[in-house]
């Protein structure tokens, strides 16, 4: 178990290094931010002086070395636009993003698990079909479209929920629903089909045959077995939710990391993009680690490995 955790941590460090190098090159592909930052009538000499002062005229390997060395010391550079440490800008906005993603995840699980359980046991009946239709819709509606529809109905027509901002729980409702729609659909479909499979297996028939109450069979023998692949997907959904939050934050003007990142990308604010991607990578790696450990809790066979 310990060895397993240790090897996973090593793996995580390698992933973070790879992500750092990749994002370093990717943000620089479209050129440096000098021309965007200075006014259009700035003279070439002004541009050159600025570029030199910022170190953008150094060869890439030198810049990469400086970036990695500083990063090892916890310095992720200054934002060009904000004139503040990039990591501080990202971490300031992390709570808002985590709040939105966590609420969306909880919402997904709270909706999808009961729906899947009921649907699996009523396969082919009206509830199951309605559920399938709803999950199909949830998976196929583009998030931005759903977001705009929610705003139209609940803010513009009904006037019951604010369309944007982060002031109290009411402003969280629409972004959380629009972000949760996709993962709710995925989890519901997966858990439903896993349960149907398990329901047909021998040990369930045996459990029923030896007279265990129906509820106990479902909870102890079906759900627990169907949960293992589902937990993997829920773990993967965390990455999806954080990524999806970028669009959701933009539409609902939610003051999280996603909004910051989009602006930083269009401004070529290198340090902020790097800090954002690294933070995302850390969160996703950590969640995956957590998912691995959760398996062990769900499946005793894995504890011995």
């Amino acid at each position, binding site marked *: 178990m310990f060895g397993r955790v240790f090897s996973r941590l090593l793996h995580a460090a390698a992933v973070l290094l790879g992500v750092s190098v990749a994002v370093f090159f990717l943000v620089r592909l479209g050129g440096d931010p000098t021309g965007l930052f200075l*006014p259009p009538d700035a003279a070439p000499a002004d541009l050159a002086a600025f570029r030199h002062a910022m170190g953008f005229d150094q060869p890439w390997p030198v810049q990469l070395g400086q970036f990695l060395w500083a990063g090892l010391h916890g310095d992720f550079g200054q934002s060009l636009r904000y004139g503040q440490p990039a990591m501080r800008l990202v971490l300031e906005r992390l709570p808002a993003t985590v709040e939105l993603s966590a609420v969306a995840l909880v919402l997904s699980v709270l909706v999808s698990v009961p729906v899947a359980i009921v649907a699996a046991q009523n396969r082919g009946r009206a509830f199951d079909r309605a559920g399938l239709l709803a999950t199909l819709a949830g998976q196929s509606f583009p998030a931005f479209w759903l977001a705009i529809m929610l705003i139209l109905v609940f803010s513009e027509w009904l006037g019951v929920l604010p369309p*944007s901002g982060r002031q109290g729980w009411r402003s969280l409702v629409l972004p959380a629903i629009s972000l949760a729609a996709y993962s709710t659909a995925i989890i519901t479909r997966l858990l439903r089909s896993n349960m149907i499979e398990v329901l047909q297996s021998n040990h369930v028939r045996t459990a029923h045959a030896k007279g265990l109450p129906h509820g106990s069979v479902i909870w102890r023998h079906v759900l627990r077995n169907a949960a293992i692949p589902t937990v993997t997907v829920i773990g993967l959904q965390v990455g999806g939710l954080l990524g999806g939050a970028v669009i959701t934050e933009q539409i609902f003007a939610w003051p999280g990391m996603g909004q*910051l990142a989009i602006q930083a990308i269009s401004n070529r604010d290198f340090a902020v993009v790097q800090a954002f991607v690294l933070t995302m990578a850390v969160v996703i790696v950590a969640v995956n680690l957590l998912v691995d450990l959760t398996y062990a809790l769900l499946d005793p066979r894995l504890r011995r490995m």
Partner: protein
Amino acid sequence: MLTRRTLMPMAAGTMAAATMAAATMVLSRAHAAAPAQVVVAQGADAYTMDPGRHSVFPTANVLFQIYDALITIDPAGGFRPALALAWSNPDPLTWRFRLRPNVRFHNGEPFDAHAVKASFDRVLDPAFRAPYYSRISAIGTVAVIDPLTVEFRTAKPYPTMLFSLYEASFPALITPPAYLAQKGPDALAAAPVGTGPYRFVEWRRDDRIVLEANPDYWGGAPAIPSAVFRPIKETRTRIAELRSGGVQLAVDIPPEDIAGLDGGATRIANIASDFLYFFAFDTLKPSPLTDRRVRQAINHAVDVAAIQKALLGGLGTRTALALPANAFGYDPAWTPYPYDPARAKALLAEAGFADGFTIPMIGRQGRYLKDREIMEATAGFLRRVGIRVQAQYLEAGVWEQLSERKAREGIMFPGWSGRDPDLVWFPLLRSGQYQSYYANPALDLLLDEGRATLDPERRREIYRQAAAIIKEDAPHLPMLQPPLIYGMASRLRWQPRTDSIIDLRGARYA
């Protein structure tokens, strides 16, 4: 394809009529009370509260409520006193400003000549690296003559000095020297102190900036007690906030939404901006564009009025040359080349291109209102006279790189602004300037002279001659000044400005 319009009823299908009635009540309640605040929705949050440290209008719009400049501008485009009461030129290299007495910063610090000098010395220091340094770099020194008199000196006569000193020259806002000395620049960047009509209260990053009225403002306390700036990038969300009463002023409304917002609880304000839409021709590298007749033909071939009507709802101002109609020296009697495709074809034939030719067209997309659509429409008109365009829509960063290497080519859609010929024609048409793809010694002489002359009458005459050359030689296809379109609560009284700076000084509710 399902459009928003067809989907709305579908989405609403399940909604009961009773709920709709309740909604109407909620909405009408929201609009009933006169708000004690004005909430402004822009596309982006401020980057900093330090006026010397940014280069974008959304930040400038916030800062102009907190800070003042020495001078400001009136709706007609004339310069008016702000922190300075009067100005004069004792000699062509000196600008003397008499300052407004008894003005205090929000922290009680007095405003005086020393504050003006300290403000400019700070941002003129090359080590400070103000992004908008080029706008103020002609200022050589700032000297305190007495507590209420300052002198700005320049190395060469600088006729556009006043444009460098009003609020759209971002680093020209006056900052408090004692506050900066005691608390440092980081304090100013986070908790600004100015002389303006609103005082800083709170900044929740990417969410809202809250300001409160300064009752002691030298220009009179603002009528609305509180001003809030919110960043809402998504256009649909800005409009939804405006409709549901969460926002009273929203920027950048698309022309197609005007009809839906102009009436009832909301209305539309629009004004032609100082910005210029025009095409520039690369006349330096070998191509058909080096022939004047080809450039004139392009001017005849494109129906700019039709483009303006179709894409911008007829808003904005058509310009005869690449110069805003509200710029110094612009003569309303000037006319653009008339739309005349037959004449265009004749000119092309005369130039030896009876069968037309193929030429690159480069520009950026999504940078300006309807930029790509305008390029596409123009390409369509050119195709009708036989000019085949290979359009490239570049990323902003790639465009900047091309510009720096002076590697733009063919027909370009650059965008520019400036309310003086020296701010537009000198950088774009003076030979050797890095944004210039044109060379004409006769025009160079005039542009150089206009740049070195302070006397407005003499300058007007110089630019009248320059305009005649530019019209005839057609280095550009002038188009229009695009509109700035705002959505507002219908009870709000507020005027948009051509330079796109939002000024809440005169805003009030009816």
